[in-house]
């Protein structure tokens, strides 16, 4: 699993880490059931604060892409692949909407009005 954070990317670091992990899941570079390497190691290798990585991992857990299990560490959730693609698309759509001045609520109502 390769994670790359671009210096010119304006997003906060934890968002970039989460995005990188979503991409790795979506591209099938990690598979459901695989264990992630320790968060401490990822932070050390990315040269970021461990809390940044943990925040990204918790974000992905809330999106049901990761499972935190006592004694088994952090694993990729079942059927995470498809969900990662859609979640990333939703995040991109929200960013796009923001760029053109639409609020989150307006975006949600747009989606609800879809046929």
């Amino acid at each position, binding site marked *: *699993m*390769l*994670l*790359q*954070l*671009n*210096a*010119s990317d304006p997003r906060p670091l934890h968002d970039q880490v989460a995005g990188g992990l979503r991409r790795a899941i979506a591209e099938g*570079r990690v598979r459901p059931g*695989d*264990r*992630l*390497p*320790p968060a401490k*190691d*990822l932070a*050390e*290798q*990315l*040269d*970021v604060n461990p809390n940044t990585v943990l925040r990204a991992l918790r974000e992905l857990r809330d999106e049901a892409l990761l499972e935190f299990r006592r004694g088994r560490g952090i694993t990729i959730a079942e059927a995470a692949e498809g969900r990662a693609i859609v979640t990333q698309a939703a995040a991109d759509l929200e960013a796009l909407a923001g760029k053109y001045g639409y609020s989150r609520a307006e975006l949600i109502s747009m989606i609800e009005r879809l046929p």
Partner: protein
Amino acid sequence: MTSRRHLSTLVLIWSLVGIAAIVGGWLAVAGRLPDPIAVHWSGMEPDGSLSQIGWLAVMLGMLALGGLIAGIAVASTPDWGYRATRRGFLAGILAWGGFTLGVHASVLLANLDNFYWQDARTSLLAIPLVLIPSAIGFLAGWFLAGNSDQPRKSTPIPSVTLDSGDRAAWATRVSVKWARYAFIAVAVLTVVTAALAGAGFAQVPWVTPIALAIVSAAGVTLTSISISIGARGVMVRFGVIGWPVWRIKLSDIDSASVEDRQALEVGGWGLRITPYGTALMLRSGECLVIKRHRKKNVFISVDDAASAAALLNALVERDAVAAGN
């Protein structure tokens, strides 16, 4: 000597030659042997006997065991394109054949022209008589394996570009589940033997649970690893608890590449330190190869080694530029 059909034919010829030599050798001297014959000695004096037919059955059984193991090896190994695999197989089967015939010859020789098996003294000649055919078999297999490997599948390495402030990491885990379960079974055996030794069963010496504990600890440690590559170089964590840790600094690394390697080529499964390099092989196949300055190469079996090598090369290059080299 690379295809499965060739090797199956070889096993068949080996079996027929072995049977012919064992039975033929016996028939040639049967009239000059006692019945039963001496088959076991302590020092030079015989202390165990077997009927001639019984001995023949033991010899043919040894041959059949070799044939069975060879047959399983041929059936279960799909790729014979590697010289190391062929060498291991051919040297093993031919050495076993040589050993069996050597034992047969030395037993027949000791019994020759004796009327009672109790008179069949052996001599020091028995030692070279067993060792020399085994060694000849081994060397024959070693050289029969041929000397050219099929060209290796070269994996193209994608390029990763890193600007000065970019951050990047690559990480993966490798584990061999069946091996881990096997070592957990050994750990259970450790506890059982320790309990038996503790309860005072004289048949179970303390050395048994201690040896088993060492084996299971080493096994559980080496059946899974976690590898990460990034700002701190290469970090390998062993075992379920992620300890010990092996680090290779970026400044020690010259370059990285990908090679297809069989575990036997680099010394076997597990952690191997050989004159060719240091290898961490949990399986055969795709390997990350790390070339170090003035140190031996490192081989680690991982999936997606191409990405790992690409990132490592980019990091090493940036590190060297930053250091002003």
